[in-house]
Each structure stands twice: as C-alpha cells, then as structure tokens.
C-alpha cells in the first residue's frame, strides 16, 4: 500500500493484445495544476467491446476517461501529456476539433443530467445542432434513440413532459438516448449507475450489453461485480498508473499482479 508513486521503472501487466484499437492512449500523463494524476498510461480500447476501468477512489480512472473527449479542457490548470489516438489521429493535438470529437465520443456521467426541457427536446437538442434533419427524420431519430436506450415504451406518451419529471434510472437512460442520438462510435460511461437504485442499475447493465453490438463502450465503475458482469476487458488503476490490463474473465479469476488481487478480493479500496 505504501509503494511510492514515483517508483520507477514501472511496467503494466497485460495479457491481451488489442487488435485495431478504436482508442489508444500512449504515455498519457495528466496534471491538475502542479499535481500529477496520471502517469504514462498505455491503454488500447477494443472496438465493439466493453472495457471496464476499475480501481480505488482517487486512482485516476475518471481522470483517464475524461481525456478521451477532452472534457477536461474547459478547466483551468488541467492538462494532459502524451498521446491518445482515435483512428490513428492524436486527439490531444492542438488542432483537434473538440465539437466534432464529442459528436463521435459520447459521455454519460455519474448523476443523470437531463436538460431543463422536454424529453423530446432533450434528445433532439444536440441532433438539431449538427444534422440537417427534416422534422420527420428528427422524430424518427428521437424514437430510434429512445428505443436503443430501452426507454421508448415508458416515455412515448410523455414526450413533451419535462425530462426532470422522470425517475433517476429513467433520467440516466434519457441521457444515454441523448448521447446515442448523435450517432457516436464510442460511449464513455463515468460510474453511470452509482446514483441509481439496483433495479434501474440492472436495466442499464442490460442496455450496455445490447449497445456493444453497435458501438464501443468504456465504463468506469467502482462496482467490481458490475465490471465482471458486463465488460470484456478490464484495466485496473492504482495511484494514477495502470497496474494490470487483461480479459475480464481472467483478471477476476486469476489476476497476475498482487495489487490487483488485493483489490479484487476486497483487501483495500
């Protein structure tokens, strides 16, 4: 537990090689002002698979995720070093178009954040900004997205009610529908079920498994059972480093690194 963070050299234990990664973080460092939060993270995200990021609180897992869509850049003093390749292009490069990037990479947050408008508008708002759909096409897109988020049947008669009127779990699925409406390639989920009751959580996990047929999911979670249930690959973070990366089934039954084993068996974290 008392391993100094600066201890070098450090090597991530990995037992899978990802072919044609959608996203590939290479030597990713991250700073909040003066304090470094991520140290040389190397991580490949496999296409059409669910990658889980686990680790104790404050280990940098959310920080890592927040680099992928550059959402950190709106805060002063937060900066990233290294490279993150998306389809072979470094998304940290200065010229990157964040707006276009975020259209391709959606994100779901801890707490559901419906916009202060109707359910229909919640889903349509972003779409309308970027796509020249006719009213008909837009309605179809909204329905399609709500269906994909397994919410359509519950809200089809309330489309013009405010999004905030839904329950917590429904709100979170509304946020997922909202993200899906932008036709993203990747969906980042930052502890999406931590503010939601167990039944609603189960529905969202089910949904993630369905979504993997059409896009790539990266999910940060501190619920290890959740990671075991829904992910194909798992990365274990500790003190800003990736300790171990591998197939989920292997990692949860037979972890290679002693630290991973300690965490998974619940001895710290």
């Amino acid at each position, binding site marked *: 537990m008392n391993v100094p963070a600066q201890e070098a050299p450090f090597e991530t234990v990995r037992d899978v090689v990802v072919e044609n990664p959608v996203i590939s973080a290479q030597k990713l460092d991250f700073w909040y002002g003066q304090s470094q939060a991520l140290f040389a993270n190397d991580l490949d995200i496999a296409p059409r698979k669910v990658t889980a990021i686990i680790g104790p609180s404050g280990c940098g897992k959310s920080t890592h995720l927040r680099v992928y869509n550059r959402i950190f850049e709106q805060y002063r003093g937060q900066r990233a070093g290294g490279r993150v390749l998306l389809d072979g292009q470094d998304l940290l490069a200065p010229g990157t178009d964040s707006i*276009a990037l975020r259209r391709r990479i959606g994100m779901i947050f801890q707490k559901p954040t419906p916009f202060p408008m109707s359910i229909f508008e919640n889903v349509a708002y972003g779409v309308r900004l970027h796509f020249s759909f006719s009213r008909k096409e837009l309605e179809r897109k909204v329905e399609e997205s709500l269906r994909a988020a397994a919410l359509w049947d519950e809200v089809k008669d309330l489309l013009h009610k405010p999004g905030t009127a839904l329950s917590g779990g429904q709100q979170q699925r509304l946020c997922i529908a909202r993200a899906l409406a932008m036709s993203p390639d990747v969906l980042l989920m930052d502890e999406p079920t931590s503010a939601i009751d167990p039944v609603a959580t189960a529905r969202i996990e089910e949904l993630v498994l369905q979504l993997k047929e059409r896009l790539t999911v990266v999910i940060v979670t501190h619920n290890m059972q959740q990671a075991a249930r829904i992910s194909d690959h798992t990365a274990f973070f500790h003190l800003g480093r990736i300790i171990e990366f591998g197939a989920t089934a292997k990692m949860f039954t037979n972890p290679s690194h002693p630290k991973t084993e300690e965490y998974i068996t619940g001895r710290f974290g």
Partner: protein
Amino acid sequence: MTELRLSHRPATGRKVADVLVRVFSVLSAALGIFFLFWILWVVLKKGHTVLSWSFFTSAPPSPGEGVGGIKYALVGTLKMTGLACLMGVPVGLLTGVYLAEFGRHGAFASGVRFCVNLLMGIPSILVGLFAYTVIVLAAPRHYSGNAGAFALAIIMLPTVARTSEDMLLLVPDALRESALALGIPRWRMITGILFRAARKGLLTGVLLSVSRVSGETAPLLFTALNNNFYPKNLSQPTANLTVTIYNYAMSPYDNWQRVAWGASLVIMAFLLGVTLLLRFILKERHRS
C-alpha cells in the same frame, strides 16, 4: 488537599441585562414596523383621494385646477425603463456570463467583479451627473429621455450582472459537462441550456433591477428633466413619474401636491408588489 468550593456569582445582573436586550430588540422590531406602516398609511391616506381610472388616462393638470392625471409621466417612465432594459439587461447578462463561464478566477474577472460592486455602490445622482456630461452635453445641452434611459441602464447593469453570475454559478457543472460532451458548442450550451436552467434566477435579477430603477429620481433630474407633453419619443425632455412627484410636491399648488401623493401611491404599490413577488420567487427556489 483543600476542598474545592463552588462559589456562585449571582446571576441577577446578567439576567437583567438579558431581559433589557430582549426588550430593546422587541422595541426595535416594533419601531421598524411602526415606521413602515406610518409611511404606508400616510401615502395611502393622501394618495387615494385622487385615484380613479381617469388618473391614469388624463393629461397633467394646470396649476390650481383639478387633478388631471399622470398618463404622460406614466408612459414616459415606462418608455425610459423599457429602453434602459434594452441597454442594461443584455450587457449585464453577458457580463454575468463572462464572470461565471469564461473568466471565473482570472485577474481580469476579479477586476470586473470589483467594478460591478463599485457601480452598485455609486450614488445614483452621480450616474445622472455622468449621463449629463456624456449625453446631454454631447449635443449643445440637449436634455432627453434617452439620456435618462442611459443613466437608468447604468444603474441596472451591475444588479443584472451580479445576479446573473450568481444564478449561473448555481447550475451544477455536471449539466455543463454533459452538454459539452454531446458536442454542443459552448455558446449554445450557455444560451440554450444554462439560461433555461437558470431562467427563474435570471428573471429575478431583471425584476430586481427594474424595481431598483423605477423609484429613482436623482439620475433623471439632470437628464430627462420633465415635460408637460405626451412623450412621443425620447429625444426630448420626457415626462416621468418620479420627477413629476418631486416638482409637484415642491410646488405651492394644492392640486399638484395631491397628484404627487397619488403618483407616489402608484409607484409604492408597484414596488411593494414587485418586492413581495421577488421574495416569493426566491423562497420557492430555496425550498426546491
């Protein structure tokens, strides 16, 4: 070991002090309420006699003859306040946006914040003086409703800016992030989502600033002056309620003084209404 003796300091004096303070505090509260109702009563008693529908729709009276009405002054006040809103609200709102969304902790932002506070504290008569030097003196000494509206806008600006900043900061960052994460550009995030999320608060700020300026007299004294004619446009000295009250109250004519009290009652009723409404809105937010 010597025996520890507990000696009691008699509490009588302390208790007397406590009772005295209690009595003083009750009296003070009663005093505040007494003055409030005294003033309300006086304005109501002296003002209600002239109130009628025609008071709102008639031209001002000649000295010594009848009560006429305050139509011109009312229209002039509304027009000037409206124009002041058009100038002051957008600038104030966008200043609030800058402070809450772009500047936040920068040195420039804290300079702006300081100036906003400063502008809030500047006596309104100085704002009138400033508007006089800038607008009235621009054309060779031309008083106008526009100059009055300019002065009122300067008074509105800091109130709107500060409430806007506060209200935007109440919107959780999670909402900003989730909008940006959808690829919604910042300007749409702010105008489409944050404004909507904070709309009640933003409206409160505007109402607050309107209530602040609608009772103002001092900034109009050297700018809009007053006028006996219908304010078709604001390029001339413009009739308005507060300066009318001032002029009429100071006049020796009994009928003008009665009109002044009537107009005071109108303004006071409006301001008390707005204040109670704002209080209600703010309460509502507290609860939710």
